[in-house]
């Protein structure tokens, strides 16, 4: 290696170090705009529409085709499949739904049931606080099998706001003063 080449390498090292320090300095000066941290328990996260949270079940739409139960790849911990449906044949020879369970102790959130549902009775949900569906579930694992009423009460992620809201939230382009201000984007609240 010639001396000139070596000198150039040394100079390049110094120059690029100073340049890199300039980049970190710019980040430091603008950190209020660029900070990505969400103080989660104090602030709530605005999720995008396609968010895969807790499943939402709409019993009034369900035609009891049992496709979700058949497609579910996971055996349940306390049930035969993670999704279990119970129904009876009604007076007009139609299946009528009695109860619908998802065993969240074994659900892997693969969303195959959501994809296969022909009538959109199973929908992606916006709730990421699964322990809040039934707070007693942390003491009793059998309570992690959530029923129809509990699943129907979950917020849909289609209602969680638009992609734009979530994007602007991440970029800190909307005022994120407190939990109330952040938790209520233009649409409906993300987590009631």
């Amino acid at each position: 290696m010639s001396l000139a080449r070596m000198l150039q390498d040394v100079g390049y090292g110094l120059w690029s170090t100073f340049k890199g320090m300039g980049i970190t300095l710019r980040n430091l000066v603008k950190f209020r705009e660029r900070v990505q941290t969400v103080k989660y328990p104090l602030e709530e996260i605005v999720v995008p529409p396609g968010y895969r949270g807790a499943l939402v079940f709409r019993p009034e739409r369900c035609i009891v085709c049992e496709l979700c139960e058949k497609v579910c790849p996971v055996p349940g911990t306390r049930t035969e499949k993670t999704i279990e449906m119970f129904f009876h044949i009604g007076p007009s020879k139609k299946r009528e739904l009695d109860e619908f369970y998802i065993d969240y102790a074994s659900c892997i959130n693969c969303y195959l049931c959501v994809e296969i549902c022909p009538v959109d009775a199973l929908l992606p949900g916006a709730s990421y606080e699964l322990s809040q569906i039934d707070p007693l579930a942390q003491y009793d694992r059998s309570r992690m099998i959530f029923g129809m009423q509990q699943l129907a009460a979950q917020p849909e992620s289609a209602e969680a706001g638009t992609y734009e809201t979530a994007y602007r939230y991440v970029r800190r382009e909307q005022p994120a003063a407190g939990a109330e201000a952040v938790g209520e984007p233009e649409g409906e609240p993300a987590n009631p």
Partner: protein
Amino acid sequence: MQSVWVDLGNWIAALFHLPSRTGPTLGLFLGAFIILNLIMLVVTYMIWWLRKLVGWMQSRLGPTHVGKWGLLQTPADAIKLMAKEGIIPTLADKTLFVLAPAVVFIAAYLVYVTIPFAPNVYVADLNVGVVYVAAISSITVLGIILGAWASNNKYALLSAFRSAAQIVSYEVPFALAILGPVMLVGSFSFREIVQGAPVAGVPGMFVHGQSTNELLGSMGLARFPASFLDWFLITQPVVFLCFFIAGLAENNITPFDIVEAESEIVAGFHVEYSGMKFALLFLAEFANTMTLAVLTTLAFLGGWNFLIADGWFVRLLGGPGSVGATLWHLLWFGLKVGLLITVVFWLRATLPRVRVDQLMDLGWKLLIPVTLLNLLVTGGWVLLGGARWSLALTNWLLLIGVMAYGARKPLPKTEPIPAVEPATVGGTSG
């Protein structure tokens, strides 16, 4: 000027009617105690400042919850570490295992014996201060090897060997670099490096043949560093960079922290340590960072001096040696050290870790030749009595020229991916 600790000890001895010969001893013990606690306090908040600053630079927040702005986070961490169980591995050599953190910390602490924080705040003004610091700071490697060997862990041992290679390599440019200011001043004592002792034959900044200090002193104007233009950072920027880089490497600070490379050797030499022993090792690491900042301040940033001549202001505060003047000097010393610590953390947030071979290349192929060359040039300059500004001009032109040349380096071209011939059935080799 007498050390403020001796003054303090004499005052206390007089207050309690103790024999007067106990005064200096008492004062020095008090000074050691105060400096030890100062190191603990400063290191605690250095860790907080590191986490905050690096967090901000990486678009995070850093600690926020414990106390206002997370200010109580590191004291809380320290309390947690004290309360933790001190585990000693079954196969470890127990005596050495316990001894090692103490060796590392004592080596980090002993450096402060000869550090003057202000013209009269020092424990001992050794006339070989620079040599003493260079010698003591390399004891750290003994503690590291001791601890790693005693832990009976292969990752710890690998880390200790890396540390030994690194510290032995960088001790040389570290000592050679600080010889630049030492030669210009003509003394190994840190106080005299800061004050620029008037030594016959050493050229001054403005007056050829007579030392600036003598001339200005005779006119009743100011001490040697008349302004920041007299700091050795301005006179010898190349050596300043070499000194700072070598110091970073010697203290295992981030671009050179191959000793603690998490991706290769779990946590380095302190894998097996926990609780208070780990806290001591951690403390020593940050105390070494502070030592680097302090030494750089003393040797290159004019120590406790203000940016411009402040003789009139010091007289206004009560003259040299008074409480006001001491606090004024301590303020500037602290600000400079804080700035340098911030620069170290800034580098930590910016640069990735180097490889082992890159580290050795930098030390042996660049820093040692450059510092040796500087030794020759500065020595010749002092011998021939050249003016200090010409030395500064040469240094800056060289540095800026090399950087400008380096900035024009064409980026390495990536080799085009060779087109892969579609495989023919049966193969064509043979």
